[in-house]
């Protein structure tokens, strides 16, 4: 990918906020030669152009002994091959490990930020709820006033009832006293009459009444015999 995302300052305007840097660097072939070089030569020499150029250059350097092959060449070849082998084999793993470390750091930061956002939102919710609660204070005062009114009314009614009860008690007492006195008088009278009657029955009258009773009984029994 060519650096189409890197924007050059072609105008006076400053690009702010700066666009982020691209994730990956420019493409290279064989780890060394940028892709732009191949694209640059493509129109004139096609696909094989740069390779021919490379081969030609190397042969020229070797044949003309501009580059001399000596012991350092061998050492360079060995070292470079080991290095290249190492990178090719362990490169991706190390890259992944480093990326993971970075990811963790980012994740922690993002988590902190999200938590902060959530906390703020809950705090706002709580405040709104408290405001709503506060609006209900009219209920409290209504209830209090109701209580006071109820107390007064109950008190007043109790007083009325008390007055009524007292008056009634007194009147009832009078009536009860009278009836009691009446009753006592009646009882006494009856008793006195009975006593005087019993006293006035003399023995003579007793004998006469008993004889009369016997005569009556005989008459009755005669009548009973007749019916039976």
């Amino acid at each position: 990918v060519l650096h189409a995302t890197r924007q050059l300052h072609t105008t006076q305007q400053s690009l702010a906020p700066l666009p982020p840097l691209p994730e990956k660097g420019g493409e290279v072939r064989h780890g060394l030669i940028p892709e732009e070089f191949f694209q640059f030569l493509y129109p004139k020499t096609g696909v094989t152009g740069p390779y021919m150029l490379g081969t030609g250059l190397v042969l020229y350097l070797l044949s003309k002994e501009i580059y001399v092959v000596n012991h350092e060449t061998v050492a360079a070849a060995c070292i470079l091959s080991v290095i290249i082998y190492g990178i090719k084999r362990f490169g991706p793993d190390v890259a992944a490990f480093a990326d993971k470390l970075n990811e963790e750091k980012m994740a922690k930061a993002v988590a902190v930020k999200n938590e902060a956002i959530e906390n703020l939102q809950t705090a706002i919710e709580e405040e709104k709820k408290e405001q709503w609660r506060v609006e209900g204070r009219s209920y409290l005062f209504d209830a209090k006033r109701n209580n006071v009114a109820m107390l007064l009314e109950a008190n007043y009614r109790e007083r009325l009832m008390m007055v009524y009860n007292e008056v009634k008690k007194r009147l009832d007492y009078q009536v009860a006293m009278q009836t009691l006195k009446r009753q006592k008088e009646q009882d006494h009278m009856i008793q006195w009459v009975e006593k005087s009657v019993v006293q006035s029955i003399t023995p003579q009258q007793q004998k006469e009444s008993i004889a009369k009773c016997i005569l009556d009984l005989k008459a009755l029994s005669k009548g009973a015999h007749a019916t039976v």
Partner: protein
Amino acid sequence: MAGRRVALKAVDWAAFAERVPPNQRAMYNALKTRSDALTARLAALPEKPPAIDWAFYKANVAKAGMVDEFQKKFSALKVPEPVDTQSAKIDAQEKEAAKSTAEYVQASKARIAQYEQQLQKLKSMIPFEQMTFEDLHEAFPETKLDKEKYPYWPHKPIADL
């Protein structure tokens, strides 16, 4: 007796209960039980005491004039109404409460504005991947290392590492 009947406002206990915060629940329960007890007491008393049957008493009580006297005094008697001492206090309390709630609501609104501001700042932050350290110190001032107080690396007390 009919002139002083102040209509009792129906208190919606359910809605009231909703608005009570949990730390004041005990007070609310106490108030409710008081209210219920008073309502029961009021409902148990009849509005007017039953009328006294003067004709019956006049016919039956032998003492002359006693019933007449009682009747005269009874109809002339005015039961004093209980004096309302608390309503003024309740009104004063209500005004007090209105004032303090207005203050509290205002403070609460200020707090909400603060929170909203911070929320806005956090939401409009650039993602961490695109930040430099300078941007981070701008967004979260507490991450800035105090180079004056701790001039030597790591610029913060070792215990904080």
